[in-house]
């Protein structure tokens, strides 16, 4: 892993939410390697190295994706579906970070393979606390999946 590695892919269209989330991440000293996608298409382009990201190193996968559900173009659940259907991206942890906890979203989210589901609280203190815990967990505590691609030519079975 290089210093330029993207650790968090933040998929968020609302500028206010984006700023508050980044503020919270900065407060937790976790904002160094953040890639921002403002809609579903951008998120997928980044993950699958398409369009503006076609020259990106495929092996460089984020440690976690923070995914809002209500986003333009390709909506959050569809982005999740693409990530979890493709063997290349399936192992990337996806945390749904959204406004609602409507049952239909919860059910769809988990059914499509979300690794976690968080509702953004109204209280900013609570939100900040949640972001700190989130970052600590996925970037520090959690052991990421092994990378079985070009960066490691030897197959793990050997």
């Amino acid at each position: 892993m290089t210093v330029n590695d993207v650790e968090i892919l933040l998929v968020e269209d609302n500028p206010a939410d984006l700023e508050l989330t980044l503020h919270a991440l900065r407060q937790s000293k976790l904002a160094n390697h953040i890639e921002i996608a403002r809609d579903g298409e951008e998120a997928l382009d980044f993950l699958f190295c398409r369009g503006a990201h076609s020259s990106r190193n495929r092996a460089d996968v984020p440690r976690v994706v923070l995914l809002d559900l209500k986003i333009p173009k390709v909506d959050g659940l569809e982005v999740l579906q693409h990530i979890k259907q493709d063997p290349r991206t399936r192992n990337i942890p996806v945390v749904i970070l959204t406004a609602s906890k409507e049952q239909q979203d919860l059910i769809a989210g988990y059914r499509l393979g979300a690794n976690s589901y968080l509702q953004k609280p109204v209280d900013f203190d609570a939100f900040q606390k949640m972001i700190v815990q989130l970052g600590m967990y996925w970037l520090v505590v959690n052991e990421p999946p092994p990378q079985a691609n070009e960066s490691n030519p030897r197959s793990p079975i050997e």
Partner: protein
Amino acid sequence: MGLNYRTKTVLGFALALAILLGVGVSSYRRALLSDQEATTVTRTHVVLEILESLRLHLADAELNRRGYLLTHRAEFVESFQRAHDRLSDALKGLRGLISDNAPQQRRLDSLEQALSLRMSYLQNSITLFQQQRGSKAAQEDLTLKGVQVMAQIRPQITAMEEQEQMLLEKRSQAEQQAFRESRWIILLGTALALALLAASSLLYWREMNRGLEAERRFHRLLEAAPDAFVVADSQGRIVIVNQQVEILFGYSRSDLLGKTVEMLMPDRFRQIHPKHRQNFHSAPSARPMGTGMTLFGLRRDGSEFPVEISLSPLEAEEGILVVSAIRDVTDRIKTQEDLRQRTEELEATNRELEAFTYSVSHDLRAPLRHIDGFSRILMDEYAGELPQQAHGHLRRIREATSHMGNLVDDLLNLSRIGRQPLALQKTNLNALVAKIKTDFSSEIAERQVDWHIALLPTVECDPGLIKQVFFNLMANAVKFTRPQQGARIEIGLADGDRQPAIFVRDNGVGFDMKYADKLFGVFQRLHRQEDFEGTGVGLATVERILRKHGGRIWVQAEPGSGATFYFTLPSLTYSQGKAAEAVGAQV
């Protein structure tokens, strides 16, 4: 009697006929017998006549003998001879007539002897006189002997006459007896026969009437029925229809009778229908026709209308008939269609509402989050530059957003209850209450609250929702006892009219009962926000959850001395409540 009216009637008529026949036969025989009797009587009369003639002939013979002896004239001898012959003839005739009567015959034998003796004396007398040889003495001797014989003859004739008279008498009596008897036989027999005929006729008439009445009643029933009735025979020919058929199909009765039922259905059903008819006749039973299919009737004017038909077999003299009860279901189908449309509209509205709630849930909270977030950042990053008052305003802003956030959450929750189906399962209420109680532990850490929780039953309910009921009621109790020294919160079972009720009681601030009806409405609050915080949605949510379960909630309160909320659940019955109470009493 166990016999049916038909047997009774037939028996009555048969018996009457037999009696009349008997009377007839008896009368005929009586007539025959009378005829015989008459012959016999006539014969007796003839016998009597002959007996009388015997006397005459004797006297005639005597007279002629005497005439001859006095006059010597030959014609007296001839006359005597004629009398003698007549006497012989009479005797011969007499014998023939009384051949069936032995005693009379015996009498006739001796009479005949006496008579022939008498005649022989007379003959001798004449012969002697003719030969001129007869002395006066000899003639006198013959005369004397003749007188003697005559003395025998007269009583004998009389005896025979008496005998015949007696016979006549007897026969006449027997005749009268027989006549009387036959008169009675004819009279009684005829009377009996007439009575039987009358009774049988009455019975027959009554049964006929009853049959007619039954038929009339059947027809009235048929006509009064709300459905159209078509009765068809095994060939599908229409036998009976009621007025409803005429109204429904536009045909008159005479158009229909004798035609096949296929004329009442649209063309597309006509081909297959005779096969359906055969199937029905092979296993006749009452059943709806064309289950799951929409059937159509065809009116005279060619228009069609949806029908529902029930078939039932009817046993009749001419075989199994099929009764079809036909109902025009145009209105029902229209109603169903209306209902379907209404349901669709309602579902659309529901979907709209759901979409609305969904978007509220997503979009309404975002600005609140932003307000709160940036206020917080302002307070943190510009802490030194802002005056104290600005900090106060920012705190107010954050409190308001927090309240608004709670309001949105509570409203979303309330609307979710209406939309989600109940997930019922057996729930131990004590376990539920105990778990909720721990949620308040931090809130009441610095207060003294006495909990009194009785043994509660295990009931069938949606545990998630009933947990909200207990949570909201207990949260209220905790909240409104806040100013109270020695707060006491009690949860238990109370007696109700038909079922026990669960209650949550507190000794908090209470309220005036005149506001009780407002309590369960959305956004209805009885306290100022600065005294007791709240959204005004909690009790509305409780009420909706209980209503959804089929239970109800009511309250009793007094300002200053607390409130008691009671609620029922359909699955909470007395048998359960009592059991729990009994156990509870031991605890």
